[in-house]
C-alpha cells in the first residue's frame, strides 16, 4: 500500500500510521494538504469506532528552502471525551448534529502553526481550538445525513486556513494482493516466472475508510518569500511536503487509571512520496526510516539509486525487461523524482527542484494552476499538475511509480537508454477506482457506513 502498515513497528500502531499524503493547488491561490491515518478501517468496526489518538502528535511539514527541514508546520492535537459514563454505546440515538446529546464519544482538536526561519527561534501560534471532529459514519439510524454532518465539521480559521479532521473514504487504490504475490503486474501475468492467466485488477482498498487531516492554506503562507508565484520556473514556486506522527518517549501503564506519558515526542511515522518506505527501503531499515527526518535522507539514497524492484522485474519476467536488466548506472531519474525534484530543462515549462539536499518530500510547484482535465498518470502523461508534481487524490501513483521504476522515466535524464515496451504498458489495473471524490474541500469522499459495509 502507499504507506499502510509499511514497517514492522508502525503496523502495530495504526492510530499513528500515516498512510498517504496529498498536496495540490486549489482555487483562490490556495494549497490543500492532506494526511491520512489508520489504515484499512472496516466501516462496521463498532462499538468502539475509529478515532485519532489523544497521545499522538500529528504534523504536516512544509520545507520551502530546500534544506530538508520544516519551515512551516501544522500540528494537530486531539482530546477525547465520553459524555455518558453509563453506556457501552458510541451513540444512544441518532446523531443529527455535532452537538447531539446522543453522541457519547467525541473528539475535539487544536491546530498549531509553527514557523521557523534560519537564525531565529521558532514561532508557535495556536490557530484553532475546540474544533469538532465528526463521528464515524455508522449507518442510517445513527448518522442520518452523514454528508451534511461531516461538512459541518469543515471550519474556516481566523487566520485564513480551512480545516477538517475526521473519517473519510479511502481514496488510494491498489491491487495489493497481486503486487505482493511475487510482483504480479498487469498485463504481464502470463510472462511471470510462475505464470497465471490475465485478469482484471482487484482494488484491495475498496470500501474501507481512513482518518483524514486536511488543511487548505493560502499559498503565500507557505512560500519562502510570502509571495504567490506565477512563474513555474521560479525557485520560490516549489515547496516540499511530508506528514509525520510522534508519540511521547515513555508510556507508563498502571493497573488503575489511564496510561500516563512522559518525555518529548519521538517520531514514529512519516511519509512524503507514496510507496517510498513501502517499496524502496529494505525491511530491516523501515522503522529507522520512520524515525528519521528528510534532511537525513542521504543514508537511504542508495536504495533509490539502485532500487531492489528494478532488479527484480527482469528476474520475475524473463525477457520482458531486457534494457532495464542491462542498465548498470545509478537511477538519476528516481533520485530526481523522489529526492531532489525535477530540475529545469528536463520537462518543458516545468521544474520542482528544491536543490541538492536529498530529501523524501512531496514536491509541489504552486505556480502551476489546477487543470480542468486532470490525467490519472499526471506528469507521465503531460499533466503538469499531477504526481510527481505534488499529488492529487485521484492520481494513479502506483502505475506511475511502477512505470518509473521499470525505466519509463529514465530517458529524461539519460538519452542513451531506451525503455522496454513493457515499462510504459504496466498497469496497476484498479483504475478507475470505485470512489466518489468531492469537488470541494476536503475532496476525499464520504466514508462508507458500517450498516452498508459491515466488518467482515
Amino acid at each position, binding site marked *: 500500500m502507499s504507506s499502510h502498515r509499511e514497517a514492522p513497528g508502525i503496523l502495530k500502531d495504526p492510530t499513528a500510521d500515516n498512510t498517504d499524503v496529498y498536496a495540490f493547488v486549489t482555487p483562490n491561490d490556495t494549497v490543500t494538504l492532506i494526511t491520512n491515518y489508520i489504515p484499512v478501517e472496516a466501516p462496521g468496526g463498532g462499538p468502539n469506532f475509529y478515532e485519532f489518538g489523544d497521545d499522538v502528535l500529528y504534523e504536516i511539514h512544509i520545507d520551502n528552502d530546500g534544506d530538508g527541514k520544516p519551515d512551516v508546520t501544522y500540528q494537530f492535537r486531539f482530546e477525547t471525551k465520553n459524555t455518558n459514563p453509563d453506556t457501552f454505546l458510541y451513540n444512544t440515538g441518532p446523531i443529527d448534529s455535532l452537538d447531539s446529546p446522543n453522541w457519547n464519544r467525541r473528539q475535539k482538536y487544536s491546530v498549531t502553526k509553527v514557523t521557523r526561519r534560519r537564525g531565529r527561534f521558532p514561532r508557535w501560534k495556536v490557530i484553532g481550538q475546540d474544533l469538532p471532529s465528526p463521528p464515524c459514519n455508522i449507518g442510517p439510524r445513527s448518522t442520518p445525513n452523514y454528508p451534511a454532518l461531516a461538512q459541518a465539521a469543515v471550519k474556516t480559521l481566523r487566520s485564513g486556513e480551512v480545516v477538517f479532521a475526521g473519517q473519510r473514504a479511502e481514496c488510494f487504490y491498489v491491487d495489493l494482493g497481486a503486487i505482493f504475490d511475487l510482483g504480479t503486474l498487469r498485463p504481464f501475468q502470463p510472462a511471470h516466472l510462475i505464470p497465471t492467466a490475465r485478469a482484471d485488477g482487484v482494488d484491495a482498498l475498496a470500501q474501507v475508510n481512513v482518518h483524514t487531516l486536511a488543511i487548505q492554506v493560502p499559498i503565500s503562507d507557505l512560500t519562502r518569500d510570502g509571495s504567490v508565484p506565477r512563474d513555474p520556473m521560479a525557485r520560490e514556486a516549489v515547496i516540499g511536503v511530508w506528514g509525520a506522527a510522534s508519540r*511521547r*518517549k*515513555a508510556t*507508563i501503564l498502571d493497573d488503575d487509571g489511564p496510561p*500516563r*506519558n*512522559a*518525555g*518529548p*515526542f519521538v517520531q514514529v511515522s512519516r511519509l512524503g512520496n507514496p510507496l517510498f518506505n513501502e517499496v524502496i527501503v529494505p525491511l530491516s531499515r523501515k522503522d529507522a526510516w520512520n524515525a528519521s527526518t528528510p534532511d537525513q535522507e542521504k543514508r537511504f539514497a542508495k536504495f533509490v539509486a539502485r532500487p531492489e524492484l528494478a532488479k527484480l522485474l527482469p528476474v520475475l519476467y524473463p525477457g520482458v525487461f531486457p534494457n532495464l536488466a542491462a542498465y548498470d548506472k545509478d537511477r538519476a531519474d528516481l533520485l530526481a523524482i523522489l529526492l531532489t525534484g525535477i530540475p529545469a530543462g528536463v520537462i518543458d515549462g516545468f521544474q520542482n527542484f528544491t536543490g541538492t539536499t536529498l530529501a523524501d518530500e512531496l514536491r509541489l510547484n504552486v505556480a502551476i494552476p489546477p487543470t480542468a482535465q486532470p490525467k490519472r498518470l499526471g506528469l507521465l502523461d503531460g499533466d503538469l499538475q499531477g504526481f510527481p508534481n505534488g499529488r492529487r487524490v485521484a492520481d494513479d501513483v502506483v502505475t506511475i511509480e511502477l512505470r518509473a521504476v521499470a525505466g519509463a522515466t529514465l530517458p529524461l535524464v539519460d538519452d542513451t537508454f531506451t525503455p522496454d515496451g513493457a515499462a510504459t504498458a504496466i498497469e496497476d489495473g484498479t483504475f478507475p477506482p470505485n470512489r466518489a471524490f468531492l469537488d470541494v474541500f476536503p475532496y476525499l469522499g464520504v466514508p462508507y457506513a458500517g450498516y452498508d459495509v459491515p466488518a467482515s
Partner: protein
Amino acid sequence: MKPVTRRSFIATGSAGALGVAGVAALGSPISLAAADTPELSDSEAAALERPAVLSIRNARAGEVELLVDERSVVFTDKQLVARMLRAGR
C-alpha cells in the same frame, strides 16, 4: 533501621530537583540501606504528581535520562545509578 519511603529514596538518590520525578518510573517504595534523608518540600512533593521516568542510558558513565512533561534531561549521577541498579537486583 528506619524504613525507606518513596520520598526518601528519591531525595537520597537524586541530584537536586532532577531526581524528584524518578518516582513514577520506579513505582512502589523500594527498600534501600541508605535511608537517612530530608523530607521533600511541598512544591517538590507536588511535582511527584506529574508522570516522569528515569532511565539509565549508560550505567558505567552514570548517565541518566529524566523524562518529565515534554522534556528530556540527561545528567550524570553515578551514585544514583548504582543505587538504582542495586535496587533492581
